[in-house]
């Protein structure tokens, strides 16, 4: 039974035909009921969400709200005033930010209602959610499997039908990869499209806020509200914000060219994922697209480049967690330096320490040129690869993840194997281009498979439209084991 699309729901609430309170009550109750199985929420704000919904029901400007009464969930590394921001870490303690992220402010101004904060890998570092200090999120399709990471909680709550839309952050695939493993849409916009003010920094030249949804049009509706220049984030670009929803619902252009790199579909790719991607290519042929062979010669180096740049930036960004101004402080340190070290030792989990140390190493005296500068040069080559590819095609199709969801514990002792999960997603962050993961099938074990569409800078409309065309031709109707039954 398909749920009402976001637009039908919010328009009905705006007109006063559907109660925002009843909508939010239903979402909050679903969150509370399913959280024992999923561990997807770190905080559920029943009272705050209901009072906000009541305010919308009685608001004089209700009819002008574009997202009236839309229940949303926010990853716990994005600030929502009044709620916690833990980043899945102990070092922040029960931190409560005194302000909203700009992206959240814009959603609230449009009438959306935050129902809670979602679990994630600590400081968004991970591909399986096993790095959360508060236990991993479980995949609603199979609770023995990881939901992906790092925004696993946001992916799981959309997949389970608790909310139609959720926010995550994507530094190397942290929206697209869990979207793929949980069978939902996951959009990472162009670098500079959505303000990061109020997003806890991880890799500042890579981080973007991204969107989980069950349809391309729903993702477009939320993007349209959040996108655009923000004086609080100097990296946001002054680029006009299109009417993403109507752009998304247009027909695929008659001369649409879809790029495919055969080299990216070789080694290490799971057979079932490979077949699903081959089927998706056929679907685009049916839609009238021209399939173009493209080459991204430096893509095979992307993981190496990424784990130098992302860890270098993280080691710098995470220097601020020192036990002085907020969050956790280790007890009884005799001096300031000991206090810093013990606070960070006790407050950070192993993966965060591993990455801080790797980043410190690649930036340290004598190694900067060999690692960091080298990586930035290869990043430039990768950007040139994409520029050349996009001269030949309008979007590039790849798998999102080399495998469907894997079991808990399978890769936890092998960090490099875990990093290789991000092979298809990190390129978009390194290049700054937008990418979207779209469900495109199920494995023989009944786990979702996702495909990724990458486009040139500011091509969100085009990749959303390509995703919409695909989901119209091949609707993804399967339901996870754990999901909300609204017909009960």
């Amino acid at each position: 039974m398909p749920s009402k699309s976001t637009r039908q729901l919010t328009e009905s609430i705006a007109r006063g035909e559907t109660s925002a309170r009843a909508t939010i009550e239903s979402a909050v109750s679903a969150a509370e009921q399913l959280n024992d199985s999923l561990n997807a929420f770190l905080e559920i704000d029943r009272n705050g969400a209901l009072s906000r919904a009541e305010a919308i029901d009685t608001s004089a400007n209700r009819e002008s709200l574009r997202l009236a009464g839309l229940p949303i969930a926010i990853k716990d590394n994005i600030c929502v005033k009044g709620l916690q921001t833990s980043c899945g870490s102990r070092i922040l303690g029960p931190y409560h930010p005194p302000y909203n992220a700009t992206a959240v402010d814009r959603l609230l101004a449009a009438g959306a209602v935050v129902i809670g904060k979602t679990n994630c890998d600590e400081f968004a570092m991970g591909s399986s959610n096993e790095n959360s200090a508060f236990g991993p999120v479980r995949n609603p399709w199979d609770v023995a499997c990881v939901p992906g990471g790092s925004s696993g909680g946001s992916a799981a709550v959309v997949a389970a039908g608790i909310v139609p839309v959720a926010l995550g952050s994507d530094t190397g695939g942290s929206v697209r990869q869990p979207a793929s493993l949980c069978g939902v849409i996951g959009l990472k916009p162009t670098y500079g499209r959505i303000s990061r003010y109020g997003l806890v920094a991880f890799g500042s030249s890579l981080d973007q806020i991204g969107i989980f949804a069950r349809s391309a049009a729903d993702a477009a509706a939320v993007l349209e509200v959040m996108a655009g220049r923000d004086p609080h984030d100097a990296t946001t670009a002054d680029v006009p914000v299109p009417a993403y929803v109507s752009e998304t619902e247009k027909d695929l252009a008659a001369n649409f060219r879809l790029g495919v790199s055969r080299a990216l579909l070789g080694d290490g790719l799971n057979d079932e994922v490979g077949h699903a991607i081959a089927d998706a290519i056929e679907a685009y042929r049916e839609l009238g697209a021209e399939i173009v062979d493209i080459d991204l010669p430096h893509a095979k180096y992307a993981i190496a480049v990424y784990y130098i740049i992302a860890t270098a930036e993280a080691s710098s960004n995470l220097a601020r967690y020192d036990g002085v101004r907020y969050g956790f402080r280790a007890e009884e340190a005799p001096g300031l330096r000991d206090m810093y070290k013990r606070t960070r030792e006790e407050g950070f989990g192993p993966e965060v320490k591993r990455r801080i140390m790797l980043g410190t190493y690649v930036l340290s005296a004598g190694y900067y040129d060999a690692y960091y500068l080298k990586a930035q040069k290869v990043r430039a080559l990768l950007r040139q690869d994409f520029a050349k590819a996009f001269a030949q095609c309008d979007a590039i199709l790849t798998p999102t993840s080399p495998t469907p969801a894997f079991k808990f514990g399978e890769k936890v002792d092998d960090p490099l194997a875990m990093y290789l999960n991000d092979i298809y997603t990190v390129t978009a962050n390194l290049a700054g281009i937008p990418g979207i993961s779209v469900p495109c099938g199920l494995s023989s074990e009944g786990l979702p498979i996702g495909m990724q569409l990458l486009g040139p800078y500011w091509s969100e409309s085009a990749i959303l439209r390509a995703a919409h065309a695909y989901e119209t031709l091949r609707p993804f109707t399967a339901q996870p084991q754990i999901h909300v039954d609204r017909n009960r």
Partner: protein
Amino acid sequence: MPITEADIEKIAQLAHLEISDEERKMFAPQISEIVTYVEQLNEIDTSSVEPALGGLTPEGEATPADRNDEVQPSLGQKIALDQAPDPAAGHFRVPKVLG
């Protein structure tokens, strides 16, 4: 390049981390493996390549990031200190700095 436990200790000092013996033993081979993996970048000739410092698009580069130097409301002392582990008399109190 292999990373020894002594290297790990030195890096931890630089990063303000007081790691345990167990962590040192775990991190040395893991970080060695990752560093060896990233060294595959040496296969690529980058002698004539300008590094891509930062993540901005051309449009992002072209967006002026300056603003007028005007006083804006700020959080204020109370909110800024509200969540400090050890606030005292309008300041952040820390353990002694010099031994």
